[in-house]
């Protein structure tokens, strides 16, 4: 049986990363804020299964080829969304499965035995797809090798987000 979070005492001496998807809570659903810092805090770090979820999201959401000197980074999922290729739930599910396999393979390849099991990839499961007029959202459960998991909700607009006037 998986747990949704670990014991805080277990995280002493662990590897950590900067937190990019802020606002996560151990239990329940919440919309994440994709910022490194905000008005409420000057930045946070993450570790354990939260860090694993972040690794998974970064790989999954990066458009393949968009990082000039890391051409193998990312997947084609968001690219397919932008090109209008994902219209039905079936389209989205199919594309997700292909991308999720890519992400899992990449994460497993870069992990080492020295890492804590809670930071290592086990599986990612698509729990729910919600379609809206201008976007859809995915609910994904990411489970670590230790059995801990994180559910993340990914709101994905069909068009790139416009910044500024």
């Amino acid at each position, binding site marked *: 049986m998986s747990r949704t979070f670990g014991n805080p005492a277990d995280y002493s001496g662990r590897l950590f*990363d*900067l937190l*990019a998807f802020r606002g996560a809570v151990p239990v329940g659903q919440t919309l994440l804020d994709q910022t*490194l810092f905000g008005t409420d805090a000057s930045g946070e770090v993450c570790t354990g299964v939260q860090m694993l979820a972040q690794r998974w999201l*970064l790989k999954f959401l990066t458009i393949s080829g968009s990082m*000039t*000197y890391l051409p193998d980074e990312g997947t084609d999922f968001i690219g397919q969304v932008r090109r209008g290729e994902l219209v039905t739930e079936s389209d989205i599910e199919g594309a997700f499965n292909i991308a999720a396999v890519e992400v899992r393979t*990449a994460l497993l390849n870069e*992990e080492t035995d020295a890492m804590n099991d809670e930071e290592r990839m086990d599986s990612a499961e698509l729990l729910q797809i919600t379609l809206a007029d201008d976007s859809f959202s995915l609910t994904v459960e990411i489970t670590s090798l230790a059995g801990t998991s994180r559910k993340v909700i990914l709101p994905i607009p069909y068009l790139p987000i416009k910044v500024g006037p």
Partner: protein
Amino acid sequence: MGLNVTSIDELDPDLVAQTQDEFAQLVQEKYPEILLIRGVYHDLVSYFAGGVCGGLNQTEINRVLRSNSLKAIEEDPTLAEDDIVDRVMSNYRIMREEGTNAIGEITIVVSEDEPVIIHSGSIFTTNGIEYRSDDAYTARQTDSEILNPTDRILEPQGDGTYSFSIDATAVEEGSAGNLNRGTIMVPSTPINNYVTSYAGTDFALGTNTETNAELLEKLQLGIAARVMQGRLNIKGLIKEQEQFARTLDYSIIGYGNPEMERDQHWIWPMSGGGRLDIYSRTAPLPNSISMLKTATLVDVTGEGGVWQFSIERDDAPGFYEVEQVILPSDAPDTGTFEITADIRGLDIRPEEFSPDLINTVEGAYTKYQTAVIRFIDTVTDPANLTIGDTQEYRVGILAMPLIKEIQDFCLQADTRNLASDIAVKAAVPCFLTINFDIRKAAETVDPDVTSIKEALVDRINHLGFPGQLHASLIAEVTHDYLETRQNLSRIDMHGRIRRPNGTIEIIRATDILQIPDDPGNLVTGNTTEFIIDVDNIGISIVIEGYAVEV
């Protein structure tokens, strides 16, 4: 490419990955708790700060490293940064010569004897290259109307047309602006009564800015002391003079060299030293100097009158040969009357300090050389003329530039070696013709023959004094312009050497064209240079030999 990276896209992906890894390694040592594989730190911090910025800095450092020492520059001059190379070379008194614009005269032919105005900056074009008139010129009908230095007289051509010449300069610097005399030049703005216009003289002195490789070649000269002593010293001394800085190469012949005969002017035919011959390649191609000469009728034959004119020593110092004699009214691309005699002489004046030249062979291609030229005019009817009558002809003389100037410089009291005299000569010419086929498969695109010819001319005319020309060199240059399934046939190389004694020697080969080792005639690899113009390269493209899939 400048020293600074101006776009992230210029970076080498392998270098970015390497610098990111190095940066991550350093961070790992200091902060072992940070996750260095995929994550925010990896994708944002170490990727940009370590990888991209590190790659950017390292790229600029590498550019400096491959330019800031002679060792690095010599390893690959094409990669070195010009600014840094200039600084390194300045330590050895070597300066990069900037490119110069070709200059010459444009002859304009009009149909009426009426004033014509050419505005300053008027553009004339040939083969896509633009030339600009140096000043505002007015062509007038009579001498009495001449008011300004830029006024010109309309010269009757004998066929009802009139001509005048203006000075012009290539708009862009570089050797591409050099032109052969007679090349048609088209005005971009209308000219009253216009008939035609062409290069009245060769357009010359157009040079490209020196490359790093050329600077390296000058390095030895830069280190050498500027004195009339050893070979490098003499070359360095001459090329240090601004006027001669862009001259190409010199071969110094002195005591002990088999080509040196001037140091045997004693009772006994043995070398006594004290003489220097400097064979000079001052330009890629000799200039074609055009001038009007008054010829005298000296004989009448069945073919026409035999006429004679003289070339004085200052007309075309060190000239090779007369390449054209035509009537003033003839178009510049007219052929030439047959030259039947070319008798060389010497004009050595006792009031000057001059090199010890005792015959025309020793004086050939020096500034002291003169000549009497005879030719048969097959156009002018001699029936109504008598021996001794005179007539003007337009004469084209082929000569290496600056021979007189270099001779004068070498004999200056402050310059010359007090224990020797120096004779400056144009290098003995071996006029080349090259012919070959480019054999290609039918589906391949025709190569750019014009560019191939220009590249060959540039390479061969800058060989210095190699003594031989290899067909493999021609193949190497040409292959830069070929694609797969395109290759060369046998390469026919034909050389015409005009020996200093005036006789002609023909050499021909398809593999190695060797300059004869004939010091008795002053023809060796140390005295003779290959000279070739684009007009003397024949390249045919043939679809032949390659297997065809059916």
